[in-house]
Structures are given as structure tokens and as C-alpha cells.
């Protein structure tokens, strides 16, 4: 079973050299439908998207998992933004956020947290830990614009 899915959002007629300028986003969500939805939203914001179905696989992709050392070939340096669901089995989005912020390599990469539940204490907890923004699910068409702004900011 594939742990990660890579997709390129190169539109017709664009060249490879322009495509490499596209921000690379790692999207983490244990829900199949939501992974698809966030993938499309990011593609519409002209991003290259890699999806992971839980926190551990996300950390492995970034080269931050406990069993990995600094010599492990990782993709962390390529990733420009991470968007993650809050409620996931094993490791929550908050725990994933903490691990990312603890890493010297990844701590400056913006992390967006998504949740279906609007719980102020949860939101505050994530923002205090350094999350860039907190988005409510289900994600909508208007969230494309918010993500686009975040991406523009994180590239600048």
C-alpha cells in the first residue's frame, strides 16, 4: 500500500523549470475523502502536493521520525508548508506540530491545522505552539484563497 502519494500540479504548457518553483506542501489526514479534498484545494493554489495518512508517516517523510538520523535522506528541506488534520489516531496534529517545531530543520516551515471541531482551547493550544493558521472543516472553495495567501507569505 502506498504510504505517500505525490502529485504534480504542472498545468499544460508549463515547463519543468517553472514547475520546480511551485511550493511543495505536505498534507496529513487520516480521512480518505478529506485527503482528496485538501489535495485539490492545494493544486488549485498551484502547489505540488504530497499526502500522508498519519503523523508518523509524515515525520518519516520529513526525516524527523525517532528511528531516523540526520544522515537519512529526507524530503524535509523540499517542503514549504505542512497542513495537517488535528484528530488523527496515534499522533494528533498538535503532537505532529510540536515535533516539527522542535526540529532545527523544519521549525520555520509554516504549519496549518485543520479540525472539524471549533474548540477555542484547542485552537489556542495550536497557535501557542506555533501553528500558522487554524482552519475549520469541511474545507471550502474560499479556503483556496486563504491557502494561497499563506503560500505567498511563506515564499516571500
Amino acid at each position: 500500500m502506498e504510504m505517500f502519494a505525490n502529485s504534480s500540479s504542472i498545468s499544460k504548457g508549463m515547463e519543468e523549470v517553472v514547475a520546480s518553483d511551485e511550493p511543495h506542501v505536505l498534507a496529513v489526514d487520516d480521512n480518505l475523502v478529506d485527503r482528496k479534498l485538501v489535495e485539490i484545494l492545494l493544486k488549485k493554489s498551484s502547489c505540488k502536493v504530497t499526502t500522508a495518512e498519519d503523523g508518523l508517516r509524515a515525520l518519516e517523510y520529513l526525516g524527523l521520525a525517532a528511528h531516523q538520523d540526520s544522515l537519512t535522506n529526507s524530503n524535509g528541506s523540499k517542503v514549504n508548508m505542512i497542513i495537517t488534520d488535528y484528530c488523527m489516531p496515534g499522533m494528533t496534529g498538535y503532537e505532529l506540530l510540536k515535533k516539527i517545531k522542535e526540529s532545527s530543520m523544519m521549525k520555520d516551515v509554516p504549519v496549518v491545522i485543520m479540525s472539524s471541531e471549533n474548540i477555542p482551547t484547542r485552537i489556542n493550544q495550536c497557535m501557542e505552539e506555533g501553528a500558522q493558521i487554524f482552519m475549520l472543516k469541511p474545507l471550502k472553495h474560499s479556503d483556496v484563497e486563504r491557502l494561497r495567501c499563506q503560500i505567498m507569505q511563506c515564499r516571500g
Partner: protein
Amino acid sequence: MEVGQLQRSFVEYMASLFREISAFAFVFVVILDLSALELMYFAVLIQKGFLDAQFSQLQQLQDDSNPDFVVEVVSLFFEDSERLINDLTMALDQPNVDFKQVDAHVHQLKGSSSSVGAQRVKNCCVPFRNCCEEQNTETCLRCLQQIKQEYLLVKNKLQTLFELEQQIVAAGGAIPMVQ
């Protein structure tokens, strides 16, 4: 299917739906435009609560670069839901039910139904989670029955909607965008 035949069967189908709406008085006009038919059908699905505004959000995300987006996402929803319903059935069939596991499955189902706009399915999930908290197998089973029913209904409606869209495209028309 010949257009006239399709129109007749749809008019009959919608007449049966409309008969349930006592609040509206409908004057039936022969619908010549398939796109208008589809819009009406869609409006009925919204009015009856099968779908909510989130479904329109999905339609807005569909464009030339993602022409099959809605069908793709809804197909994933069908796949996911059927798997979850099976898992729920098995989990509730155990001599010692693991209510945490049951709740986790319902949480997933609530998430995906919410993301595609399958309102009635989503609404069934809230009482289900309460029954899990109370650790009551009997009420959980009743909730599961409800979910199965609502899921099959919305699946049927969505498949009909997609079939209608296919007919429109095949007849050379364009699928109307609902804003």
C-alpha cells in the same frame, strides 16, 4: 435512453418526491430542458436535506483542470462509507464491544459525510457518538441501522444526479453550475 423517455421517468420520479412536500403547490410544466431538470432535481435534494451547501462547494472546485472532481470525491465517499459501515457492523457484533473503536469509525464517517455534504448521514453520526459514550450496544445498533438507510438513500440520489449529468453531456449540453 431517449430524452423523452428520460424526461417522463424523471417527471414521474419528481412528482413522487413533490407529493411529499405539502408546503408547496407545484404546477407541472413539461420540462423540455434537461439542464433545468437537473437543477430541479438538485434543488429537491437540497430541500429534502440529502445534500447541504458543502456539496455546492465541491461543485465549485470542479473545473477544466479537474473535470471529474465531484464524481471522484463522491466515489471515495462511497468506498470509505461502505468500508466503515462493514467495520461498524463487525465491531458491534463482538461479544465485548470496543466502543472506542466504534466511536473512531463513526468519527471518520462524520468527517467524510460532512466533507461531501451528505447531510443526513452526517446528522446520524452525532447521536451515534452519544450512544458510544453511553456504551449501549442496542442503541448503537439502531443508530447503525439509521446510517445504513440514510447512506443507501443518498448513494441512490447521487448516482441518479450523476447519471442525469452524463445524459446532459451526451446530449451535447453543458452541466449547469449552481452558485
